[in-house]
Protein backbone atom coordinates (compact mmCIF):
# COMPACT_ATOMS: atom_id res chain seq x y z
CA UNK A 1 0.00 0.00 0.00
CA UNK A 2 1.61 3.21 -1.07
CA UNK A 3 0.00 6.59 -0.56
CA UNK A 4 -3.66 5.91 -1.23
CA UNK A 5 -4.85 9.17 0.31
CA UNK A 6 -5.98 7.58 3.58
CA UNK A 7 -6.03 10.23 6.33
CA UNK A 8 -4.92 9.70 9.93
CA UNK A 9 -8.52 10.20 11.04
CA UNK A 10 -9.56 7.13 9.04
CA UNK A 11 -7.09 4.67 10.59
CA UNK A 12 -7.97 2.15 13.29
CA UNK A 13 -6.33 3.07 16.61
CA UNK A 14 -2.91 1.71 17.41
CA UNK A 15 -1.93 0.64 13.90
CA UNK A 16 -3.98 -2.54 14.09
CA UNK A 17 -4.88 -4.30 10.88
CA UNK A 18 -8.50 -5.38 10.75
CA UNK A 19 -8.43 -7.52 7.60
CA UNK A 20 -6.88 -10.95 7.93
CA UNK A 21 -4.29 -11.88 5.32
CA UNK A 22 -4.03 -8.49 3.65
CA UNK A 23 -0.24 -8.50 3.53
CA UNK A 24 -0.63 -9.74 -0.04
CA UNK A 25 -1.81 -6.20 -0.86
CA UNK A 26 1.45 -4.75 0.45
CA UNK A 27 3.71 -4.91 -2.58
CA UNK A 28 7.34 -5.19 -1.56
CA UNK A 29 8.80 -5.96 -4.97
CA UNK A 30 10.07 -2.40 -5.18
CA UNK A 31 12.63 -3.13 -2.45
CA UNK A 32 14.44 -5.54 -4.81
CA UNK A 33 17.95 -4.78 -6.10
CA UNK A 34 18.44 -8.16 -7.82
CA UNK A 35 15.81 -10.16 -9.65
CA UNK A 36 15.81 -13.95 -9.85
CA UNK A 37 15.71 -15.03 -13.49
CA UNK A 38 14.89 -18.68 -14.15
CA UNK A 39 16.33 -20.59 -17.07
CA UNK A 40 13.40 -22.52 -18.54
CA UNK A 41 15.23 -24.01 -21.54
CA UNK A 42 18.61 -25.70 -21.15
CA UNK A 43 21.70 -24.31 -22.90
CA UNK A 44 24.90 -26.12 -23.87
CA UNK A 45 26.49 -25.08 -20.58
CA UNK A 46 23.55 -24.85 -18.13
CA UNK A 47 20.72 -27.14 -17.06
CA UNK A 48 17.18 -25.74 -17.11
CA UNK A 49 14.70 -25.65 -14.22
CA UNK A 50 13.63 -29.18 -13.26
CA UNK A 51 10.56 -27.96 -11.30
CA UNK A 52 11.87 -29.66 -8.19
CA UNK A 53 10.29 -26.86 -6.05
CA UNK A 54 13.31 -26.55 -3.75
CA UNK A 55 13.18 -22.76 -4.24
CA UNK A 56 9.43 -22.77 -3.47
CA UNK A 57 10.23 -24.55 -0.20
CA UNK A 58 12.97 -22.14 0.86
CA UNK A 59 11.60 -18.77 -0.33
CA UNK A 60 10.93 -16.70 2.85
CA UNK A 61 8.37 -14.55 1.03
CA UNK A 62 6.37 -17.32 -0.63
CA UNK A 63 7.17 -15.54 -3.87
CA UNK A 64 7.97 -18.70 -5.82
CA UNK A 65 4.62 -19.60 -7.31
CA UNK A 66 3.45 -23.15 -7.73
CA UNK A 67 0.09 -24.25 -9.09
CA UNK A 68 -1.15 -27.82 -9.07
CA UNK A 69 2.27 -29.01 -7.98
CA UNK A 70 4.05 -27.31 -10.87
CA UNK A 71 6.43 -24.36 -10.57
CA UNK A 72 5.17 -21.44 -12.62
CA UNK A 73 7.55 -18.56 -11.83
CA UNK A 74 8.32 -15.69 -9.50
CA UNK A 75 5.79 -13.31 -7.92
CA UNK A 76 7.70 -10.10 -8.62
CA UNK A 77 5.22 -8.00 -6.62
CA UNK A 78 6.53 -9.60 -3.43
CA UNK A 79 10.01 -11.01 -4.21
CA UNK A 80 12.57 -8.90 -2.34
CA UNK A 81 15.51 -10.33 -4.26
CA UNK A 82 17.23 -12.02 -1.35
CA UNK A 83 18.77 -14.68 -3.60
CA UNK A 84 18.03 -17.69 -1.41
CA UNK A 85 16.33 -19.39 -4.37
CA UNK A 86 19.46 -19.05 -6.52
CA UNK A 87 21.58 -20.32 -3.65
CA UNK A 88 19.53 -23.45 -2.98
CA UNK A 89 18.73 -24.37 -6.60
CA UNK A 90 20.28 -27.83 -7.08
CA UNK A 91 20.88 -27.22 -10.82
CA UNK A 92 21.86 -23.54 -10.47
CA UNK A 93 19.32 -22.42 -13.05
CA UNK A 94 18.39 -19.21 -11.18
CA UNK A 95 20.50 -16.12 -11.84
CA UNK A 96 20.25 -12.92 -9.79
CA UNK A 97 20.23 -10.04 -12.26
CA UNK A 98 20.51 -6.39 -11.30
CA UNK A 99 17.18 -4.59 -11.54
CA UNK A 100 18.83 -1.86 -13.63
CA UNK A 101 18.86 -4.40 -16.45
CA UNK A 102 15.05 -4.26 -16.51
CA UNK A 103 14.61 -0.50 -16.65
CA UNK A 104 11.82 0.35 -19.00
CA UNK A 105 9.72 -2.66 -18.09
CA UNK A 106 6.49 -2.12 -16.20
CA UNK A 107 7.50 -1.13 -12.68
CA UNK A 108 6.97 -3.73 -10.01
Amino acid at each position, binding site marked *: *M*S*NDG*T*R*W*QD*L*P*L*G*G*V*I*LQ*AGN*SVEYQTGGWRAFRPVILWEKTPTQKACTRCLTCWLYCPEAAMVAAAGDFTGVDLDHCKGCGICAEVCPVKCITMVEESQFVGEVAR
Partner: protein
Amino acid sequence: MALDGNSAVAEAMRQINPDVMAAYPITPSTAIPQAFAQYVADGAVDTEFVPVESEHSAMSACIGAAAAGGRVTTATSANGLALMWEMLYVAASMRLPIVIADVNRALSGPINIHCDHGDSMGTRDAGWIHLFSENAQEAYENTLQAVRIAEHPDVRLPVMVMQDGFITSHTMERVEIYDDAEVKDFVGPYRPGYPLLDLDHPVTYGALDLADFYFEHKRAQIEGMRHATRVIQDVGAEFGRRFGRPYSLFDAYGMDDADLAIVVLASTAGTARCAMDALRAKGVRAGLIKPRVFRPFPGKELIEALRNVKAVAVMDRSVSFGAMDNSGPLWLELLAAAQLHKLAIPIVEYVFGLGGREITPGDIENIYRDLAMIAATDTFSRPVTYLGVRGDEDFQSAAPVAVRAMA
Protein backbone atom coordinates in the same frame (compact mmCIF):
# COMPACT_ATOMS: atom_id res chain seq x y z
CA MET B 1 -7.59 4.06 57.62
CA ALA B 2 -3.84 4.35 58.15
CA LEU B 3 -1.97 3.38 55.00
CA ASP B 4 1.31 4.16 53.29
CA GLY B 5 1.35 5.18 49.65
CA ASN B 6 2.13 1.72 48.33
CA SER B 7 -0.72 0.15 50.30
CA ALA B 8 -3.09 2.88 49.11
CA VAL B 9 -2.25 2.08 45.48
CA ALA B 10 -2.58 -1.65 46.14
CA GLU B 11 -6.05 -0.91 47.59
CA ALA B 12 -6.93 1.02 44.43
CA MET B 13 -5.81 -1.91 42.30
CA ARG B 14 -7.80 -4.34 44.43
CA GLN B 15 -10.90 -2.23 43.82
CA ILE B 16 -10.11 -1.89 40.11
CA ASN B 17 -9.80 -5.70 39.99
CA PRO B 18 -7.79 -5.78 36.74
CA ASP B 19 -7.76 -8.84 34.50
CA VAL B 20 -3.97 -9.06 34.58
CA MET B 21 -1.14 -7.66 36.66
CA ALA B 22 2.38 -8.51 35.50
CA ALA B 23 5.11 -7.16 37.75
CA TYR B 24 8.65 -7.54 38.97
CA PRO B 25 9.62 -6.24 42.42
CA ILE B 26 11.85 -3.19 42.81
CA THR B 27 12.38 -0.82 45.70
CA PRO B 28 10.47 1.31 46.67
CA SER B 29 7.40 0.01 44.78
CA THR B 30 7.79 -3.67 45.78
CA ALA B 31 5.00 -3.50 48.33
CA ILE B 32 2.42 -2.83 45.59
CA PRO B 33 2.78 -6.15 43.72
CA GLN B 34 3.49 -7.86 47.07
CA ALA B 35 0.20 -6.72 48.57
CA PHE B 36 -1.60 -7.35 45.31
CA ALA B 37 -0.24 -10.91 45.06
CA GLN B 38 -1.72 -11.48 48.51
CA TYR B 39 -5.11 -10.27 47.26
CA VAL B 40 -4.81 -12.75 44.39
CA ALA B 41 -3.84 -15.57 46.76
CA ASP B 42 -6.74 -14.68 49.05
CA GLY B 43 -9.21 -14.64 46.20
CA ALA B 44 -10.03 -11.00 46.85
CA VAL B 45 -9.57 -10.23 43.13
CA ASP B 46 -10.12 -12.13 39.90
CA THR B 47 -6.77 -11.02 38.50
CA GLU B 48 -4.23 -13.24 36.76
CA PHE B 49 -0.97 -12.26 38.47
CA VAL B 50 2.06 -12.86 36.28
CA PRO B 51 5.35 -12.88 38.19
CA VAL B 52 7.85 -12.18 35.43
CA GLU B 53 11.64 -12.34 35.25
CA SER B 54 12.27 -8.65 34.48
CA GLU B 55 10.50 -5.34 33.98
CA HIS B 56 10.96 -5.62 30.22
CA SER B 57 8.97 -8.83 30.48
CA ALA B 58 6.49 -7.18 32.84
CA MET B 59 5.62 -4.49 30.32
CA SER B 60 5.68 -7.01 27.47
CA ALA B 61 3.20 -9.22 29.33
CA CYS B 62 1.07 -6.17 30.08
CA ILE B 63 1.04 -5.28 26.39
CA GLY B 64 0.07 -8.81 25.38
CA ALA B 65 -2.67 -8.96 27.98
CA ALA B 66 -3.98 -5.52 27.05
CA ALA B 67 -3.99 -6.36 23.35
CA ALA B 68 -5.86 -9.55 24.20
CA GLY B 69 -8.56 -7.30 25.67
CA GLY B 70 -7.72 -7.22 29.37
CA ARG B 71 -7.64 -4.37 31.86
CA VAL B 72 -4.01 -4.35 32.97
CA THR B 73 -1.87 -2.75 35.67
CA THR B 74 1.69 -2.99 36.94
CA ALA B 75 4.01 -1.19 39.33
CA THR B 76 7.66 -0.24 39.17
CA SER B 77 10.38 2.28 40.02
CA ALA B 78 13.58 3.76 38.62
CA ASN B 79 15.75 1.09 36.97
CA GLY B 80 12.70 -1.12 36.56
CA LEU B 81 10.97 1.61 34.58
CA ALA B 82 14.16 2.08 32.58
CA LEU B 83 14.21 -1.62 31.72
CA MET B 84 10.65 -1.27 30.38
CA TRP B 85 11.79 1.51 28.09
CA GLU B 86 11.24 0.21 24.59
CA MET B 87 7.98 -1.46 25.59
CA LEU B 88 6.61 1.80 27.04
CA TYR B 89 6.66 3.24 23.53
CA VAL B 90 5.04 0.10 22.12
CA ALA B 91 2.24 0.23 24.72
CA ALA B 92 1.47 3.86 23.88
CA SER B 93 1.66 3.45 20.12
CA MET B 94 -0.63 0.42 20.23
CA ARG B 95 -3.05 2.61 22.23
CA LEU B 96 -3.26 0.11 25.08
CA PRO B 97 -4.70 1.68 28.26
CA ILE B 98 -2.27 0.11 30.74
CA VAL B 99 -1.80 1.74 34.16
CA ILE B 100 1.63 1.83 35.83
CA ALA B 101 2.07 2.81 39.44
CA ASP B 102 5.53 4.39 39.32
CA VAL B 103 7.03 5.09 42.71
CA ASN B 104 9.56 7.77 41.83
CA ARG B 105 13.14 6.83 42.60
CA ALA B 106 16.49 8.15 41.40
CA LEU B 107 17.99 6.28 38.47
CA SER B 108 21.38 4.63 38.77
CA GLY B 109 24.12 5.54 38.90
CA PRO B 110 25.47 5.90 41.41
CA ILE B 111 22.91 3.45 42.70
CA ASN B 112 20.34 5.07 44.97
CA ILE B 113 16.94 3.97 46.18
CA HIS B 114 15.50 7.32 47.27
CA CYS B 115 13.20 9.78 45.60
CA ASP B 116 13.73 11.98 42.64
CA HIS B 117 11.71 12.26 39.45
CA GLY B 118 14.47 11.29 37.03
CA ASP B 119 12.90 7.90 36.29
CA SER B 120 9.50 9.02 35.05
CA MET B 121 10.83 12.26 33.55
CA GLY B 122 13.05 10.19 31.30
CA THR B 123 9.90 8.62 29.84
CA ARG B 124 8.24 11.94 29.14
CA ASP B 125 8.33 11.43 25.36
CA ALA B 126 7.19 7.80 25.46
CA GLY B 127 3.51 8.66 24.91
CA TRP B 128 2.21 8.01 28.42
CA ILE B 129 -0.01 10.29 30.46
CA HIS B 130 1.82 11.35 33.64
CA LEU B 131 -0.11 12.03 36.85
CA PHE B 132 1.79 13.12 39.98
CA SER B 133 0.50 12.57 43.51
CA GLU B 134 1.38 14.64 46.56
CA ASN B 135 0.39 12.04 49.14
CA ALA B 136 -1.09 8.58 49.60
CA GLN B 137 -4.66 9.85 49.20
CA GLU B 138 -3.83 11.35 45.83
CA ALA B 139 -1.89 8.24 44.77
CA TYR B 140 -5.00 6.18 45.57
CA GLU B 141 -7.38 8.55 43.80
CA ASN B 142 -5.12 9.14 40.79
CA THR B 143 -4.87 5.36 40.29
CA LEU B 144 -8.67 5.02 40.23
CA GLN B 145 -8.99 7.89 37.77
CA ALA B 146 -6.09 6.64 35.65
CA VAL B 147 -8.18 3.67 34.53
CA ARG B 148 -11.01 5.92 33.33
CA ILE B 149 -8.64 8.34 31.61
CA ALA B 150 -6.62 5.61 29.88
CA GLU B 151 -9.67 3.69 28.66
CA HIS B 152 -11.62 6.72 27.42
CA PRO B 153 -12.34 6.12 23.73
CA ASP B 154 -10.99 9.58 22.83
CA VAL B 155 -7.71 8.90 24.65
CA ARG B 156 -6.75 5.20 24.65
CA LEU B 157 -3.29 5.86 26.06
CA PRO B 158 -1.43 4.30 28.97
CA VAL B 159 -1.17 6.24 32.22
CA MET B 160 1.67 6.44 34.72
CA VAL B 161 0.69 7.41 38.26
CA MET B 162 3.58 8.79 40.28
CA GLN B 163 4.18 9.09 43.99
CA ASP B 164 7.42 10.00 45.77
CA GLY B 165 9.53 7.02 46.76
CA PHE B 166 9.69 6.44 50.53
CA ILE B 167 8.44 9.98 51.28
CA THR B 168 4.96 8.92 50.18
CA SER B 169 5.29 5.21 49.44
CA HIS B 170 6.48 4.27 52.94
CA THR B 171 4.91 6.95 55.12
CA MET B 172 1.78 6.03 57.07
CA GLU B 173 -0.97 8.55 56.52
CA ARG B 174 -4.66 8.75 57.08
CA VAL B 175 -6.22 7.64 53.82
CA GLU B 176 -9.88 7.52 53.00
CA ILE B 177 -10.68 4.35 51.03
CA TYR B 178 -14.06 4.53 49.33
CA ASP B 179 -16.71 1.86 49.26
CA ASP B 180 -15.84 -1.03 46.93
CA ALA B 181 -19.16 -0.89 45.11
CA GLU B 182 -18.98 2.87 44.58
CA VAL B 183 -15.46 2.59 43.19
CA LYS B 184 -16.49 -0.28 40.95
CA ASP B 185 -19.35 1.84 39.65
CA PHE B 186 -16.98 4.77 39.01
CA VAL B 187 -14.33 2.68 37.26
CA GLY B 188 -16.96 0.86 35.21
CA PRO B 189 -16.58 -2.07 32.83
CA TYR B 190 -13.75 -2.13 30.30
CA ARG B 191 -14.65 -2.19 26.64
CA PRO B 192 -11.44 -2.99 24.75
CA GLY B 193 -10.93 -1.57 21.27
CA TYR B 194 -9.66 -4.51 19.22
CA PRO B 195 -9.29 -7.49 21.56
CA LEU B 196 -7.17 -10.28 20.12
CA LEU B 197 -9.36 -12.80 21.92
CA ASP B 198 -12.37 -11.77 19.83
CA LEU B 199 -11.86 -14.68 17.48
CA ASP B 200 -14.70 -13.63 15.22
CA HIS B 201 -12.87 -10.40 14.41
CA PRO B 202 -9.20 -11.28 14.04
CA VAL B 203 -6.76 -8.34 13.98
CA THR B 204 -3.03 -7.86 13.70
CA TYR B 205 -1.13 -5.82 16.31
CA GLY B 206 2.38 -4.53 15.74
CA ALA B 207 2.62 -4.84 11.97
CA LEU B 208 5.42 -3.18 10.00
CA ASP B 209 4.51 0.46 9.41
CA LEU B 210 6.86 2.33 7.10
CA ALA B 211 7.03 5.78 5.59
CA ASP B 212 3.57 5.41 4.07
CA PHE B 213 1.53 5.22 7.33
CA TYR B 214 3.79 5.58 10.41
CA PHE B 215 3.35 9.38 10.48
CA GLU B 216 -0.44 9.09 10.26
CA HIS B 217 -0.45 6.64 13.18
CA LYS B 218 1.74 9.03 15.22
CA ARG B 219 -0.60 11.89 14.37
CA ALA B 220 -3.55 9.83 15.64
CA GLN B 221 -1.57 9.13 18.83
CA ILE B 222 -1.04 12.88 19.26
CA GLU B 223 -4.80 13.34 18.98
CA GLY B 224 -5.29 10.94 21.90
CA MET B 225 -2.90 13.04 23.96
CA ARG B 226 -4.71 16.23 22.92
CA HIS B 227 -8.06 14.83 24.04
CA ALA B 228 -6.47 13.70 27.32
CA THR B 229 -6.32 17.27 28.63
CA ARG B 230 -10.13 17.50 28.48
CA VAL B 231 -10.81 13.93 29.57
CA ILE B 232 -8.54 14.25 32.63
CA GLN B 233 -10.55 17.28 33.72
CA ASP B 234 -13.90 15.61 33.02
CA VAL B 235 -12.95 12.47 34.93
CA GLY B 236 -11.54 14.60 37.77
CA ALA B 237 -14.77 16.59 38.00
CA GLU B 238 -16.87 13.42 38.01
CA PHE B 239 -14.62 12.00 40.71
CA GLY B 240 -15.29 15.12 42.74
CA ARG B 241 -19.05 14.77 42.33
CA ARG B 242 -18.98 11.14 43.45
CA PHE B 243 -16.39 11.21 46.21
CA GLY B 244 -16.08 14.86 47.23
CA ARG B 245 -12.53 15.50 46.01
CA PRO B 246 -12.48 17.10 42.55
CA TYR B 247 -9.31 16.88 40.47
CA SER B 248 -8.01 19.06 37.67
CA LEU B 249 -4.75 19.65 35.79
CA PHE B 250 -3.04 21.31 38.75
CA ASP B 251 -3.79 22.72 42.18
CA ALA B 252 -3.30 26.41 42.93
CA TYR B 253 -2.81 27.77 46.44
CA GLY B 254 -2.91 31.44 47.25
CA MET B 255 -2.77 32.33 43.59
CA ASP B 256 -5.69 34.76 43.72
CA ASP B 257 -3.47 37.52 45.07
CA ALA B 258 0.05 36.06 44.84
CA ASP B 259 3.03 38.13 43.71
CA LEU B 260 5.51 35.27 44.02
CA ALA B 261 4.83 31.72 42.86
CA ILE B 262 6.55 28.38 43.19
CA VAL B 263 5.70 25.54 40.83
CA VAL B 264 6.58 22.13 42.21
CA LEU B 265 5.42 18.52 41.75
CA ALA B 266 4.41 15.85 44.24
CA SER B 267 5.18 15.65 47.95
CA THR B 268 7.35 18.78 48.00
CA ALA B 269 4.19 20.78 47.34
CA GLY B 270 3.18 19.91 50.90
CA THR B 271 6.49 21.23 52.21
CA ALA B 272 6.06 24.33 50.08
CA ARG B 273 2.57 24.96 51.47
CA CYS B 274 4.10 24.99 54.95
CA ALA B 275 6.67 27.57 53.87
CA MET B 276 4.01 29.56 52.05
CA ASP B 277 1.70 29.68 55.06
CA ALA B 278 4.56 30.87 57.28
CA LEU B 279 5.37 33.68 54.86
CA ARG B 280 1.73 34.59 54.32
CA ALA B 281 1.48 35.08 58.10
CA LYS B 282 4.21 37.68 57.69
CA GLY B 283 2.37 39.41 54.87
CA VAL B 284 4.30 37.96 51.92
CA ARG B 285 2.02 37.30 48.97
CA ALA B 286 3.32 33.83 48.29
CA GLY B 287 1.54 31.39 45.99
CA LEU B 288 1.98 27.81 44.93
CA ILE B 289 1.09 25.69 41.93
CA LYS B 290 1.24 21.93 42.15
CA PRO B 291 0.91 20.39 38.69
CA ARG B 292 -0.87 17.06 38.78
CA VAL B 293 -0.60 16.39 35.07
CA PHE B 294 2.85 16.59 33.50
CA ARG B 295 1.85 14.78 30.30
CA PRO B 296 -0.03 16.19 28.48
CA PHE B 297 1.69 19.37 29.69
CA PRO B 298 -0.95 22.01 30.50
CA GLY B 299 1.18 24.95 29.34
CA LYS B 300 -1.61 27.37 28.50
CA GLU B 301 -3.52 26.68 31.70
CA LEU B 302 -0.41 27.03 33.89
CA ILE B 303 0.54 30.34 32.29
CA GLU B 304 -2.97 31.69 32.80
CA ALA B 305 -2.69 30.75 36.49
CA LEU B 306 0.63 32.61 36.68
CA ARG B 307 -0.56 35.62 34.68
CA ASN B 308 -0.65 38.07 37.59
CA VAL B 309 2.49 37.15 39.53
CA LYS B 310 5.76 39.06 39.35
CA ALA B 311 8.26 36.19 39.59
CA VAL B 312 8.16 32.40 39.44
CA ALA B 313 10.46 29.70 40.74
CA VAL B 314 10.15 26.22 39.29
CA MET B 315 11.45 23.39 41.46
CA ASP B 316 12.57 20.35 39.50
CA ARG B 317 13.37 17.11 41.28
CA SER B 318 15.29 15.87 38.23
CA VAL B 319 17.82 17.21 35.80
CA SER B 320 17.93 16.93 32.03
CA PHE B 321 21.66 16.67 31.40
CA GLY B 322 22.75 18.92 28.58
CA ALA B 323 19.37 20.60 28.26
CA MET B 324 19.46 24.40 28.24
CA ASP B 325 21.45 25.50 31.31
CA ASN B 326 21.40 21.89 32.58
CA SER B 327 17.99 22.40 34.08
CA GLY B 328 14.95 20.23 34.67
CA PRO B 329 12.02 19.35 32.40
CA LEU B 330 9.30 21.20 34.32
CA TRP B 331 11.18 24.53 34.04
CA LEU B 332 11.96 24.04 30.37
CA GLU B 333 8.35 23.31 29.48
CA LEU B 334 7.08 26.21 31.55
CA LEU B 335 9.57 28.60 29.89
CA ALA B 336 8.38 27.43 26.49
CA ALA B 337 4.77 27.93 27.56
CA ALA B 338 5.56 31.44 28.86
CA GLN B 339 7.09 32.37 25.52
CA LEU B 340 4.18 30.93 23.55
CA HIS B 341 1.54 32.56 25.73
CA LYS B 342 3.42 35.84 26.16
CA LEU B 343 4.18 35.91 29.86
CA ALA B 344 7.30 38.07 30.23
CA ILE B 345 8.30 37.72 33.87
CA PRO B 346 11.39 36.18 35.49
CA ILE B 347 11.03 32.38 35.77
CA VAL B 348 13.96 30.79 37.56
CA GLU B 349 14.82 27.18 38.24
CA TYR B 350 15.83 25.34 41.40
CA VAL B 351 16.96 21.76 40.90
CA PHE B 352 16.57 20.01 44.25
CA GLY B 353 16.26 16.74 46.07
CA LEU B 354 18.20 14.47 43.71
CA GLY B 355 18.64 10.99 45.15
CA GLY B 356 16.43 11.83 48.11
CA ARG B 357 18.37 14.89 49.32
CA GLU B 358 16.03 16.40 51.87
CA ILE B 359 14.17 19.66 51.32
CA THR B 360 12.83 21.70 54.24
CA PRO B 361 10.26 24.46 54.61
CA GLY B 362 13.23 26.73 55.37
CA ASP B 363 14.79 25.95 51.98
CA ILE B 364 11.54 26.92 50.30
CA GLU B 365 11.12 30.08 52.39
CA ASN B 366 14.55 31.07 51.04
CA ILE B 367 13.31 30.57 47.51
CA TYR B 368 10.33 32.86 48.19
CA ARG B 369 12.79 35.43 49.59
CA ASP B 370 14.84 35.13 46.40
CA LEU B 371 11.66 35.63 44.41
CA ALA B 372 10.85 38.80 46.35
CA MET B 373 14.21 40.28 45.34
CA ILE B 374 13.82 39.06 41.77
CA ALA B 375 10.34 40.58 41.56
CA ALA B 376 11.53 43.90 43.01
CA THR B 377 14.31 44.22 40.42
CA ASP B 378 12.86 42.24 37.52
CA THR B 379 16.25 40.53 37.21
CA PHE B 380 18.05 37.46 38.53
CA SER B 381 21.64 36.35 38.98
CA ARG B 382 21.42 32.84 37.53
CA PRO B 383 18.68 30.90 35.77
CA VAL B 384 19.41 27.56 37.46
CA THR B 385 20.34 26.84 41.07
CA TYR B 386 21.28 23.41 42.42
CA LEU B 387 19.72 23.67 45.84
CA GLY B 388 21.54 22.21 48.82
CA VAL B 389 24.44 20.64 46.94
CA ARG B 390 27.75 20.81 48.81
CA GLY B 391 30.34 22.80 46.87
CA ASP B 392 27.74 25.24 45.52
CA GLU B 393 27.34 27.11 48.81
CA ASP B 394 28.08 30.41 47.05
CA PHE B 395 25.49 29.76 44.34
CA GLN B 396 22.35 28.98 46.32
CA SER B 397 20.24 31.94 45.26
CA ALA B 398 18.89 33.20 41.97
CA ALA B 399 18.38 36.68 43.41
CA PRO B 400 20.49 39.52 41.96
CA VAL B 401 23.87 39.70 43.73
CA ALA B 402 23.72 43.44 44.50
CA VAL B 403 20.26 43.15 46.04
CA ARG B 404 21.30 40.13 48.10
CA ALA B 405 24.26 42.11 49.48
CA MET B 406 21.84 44.70 50.86
CA ALA B 407 19.38 42.17 52.24
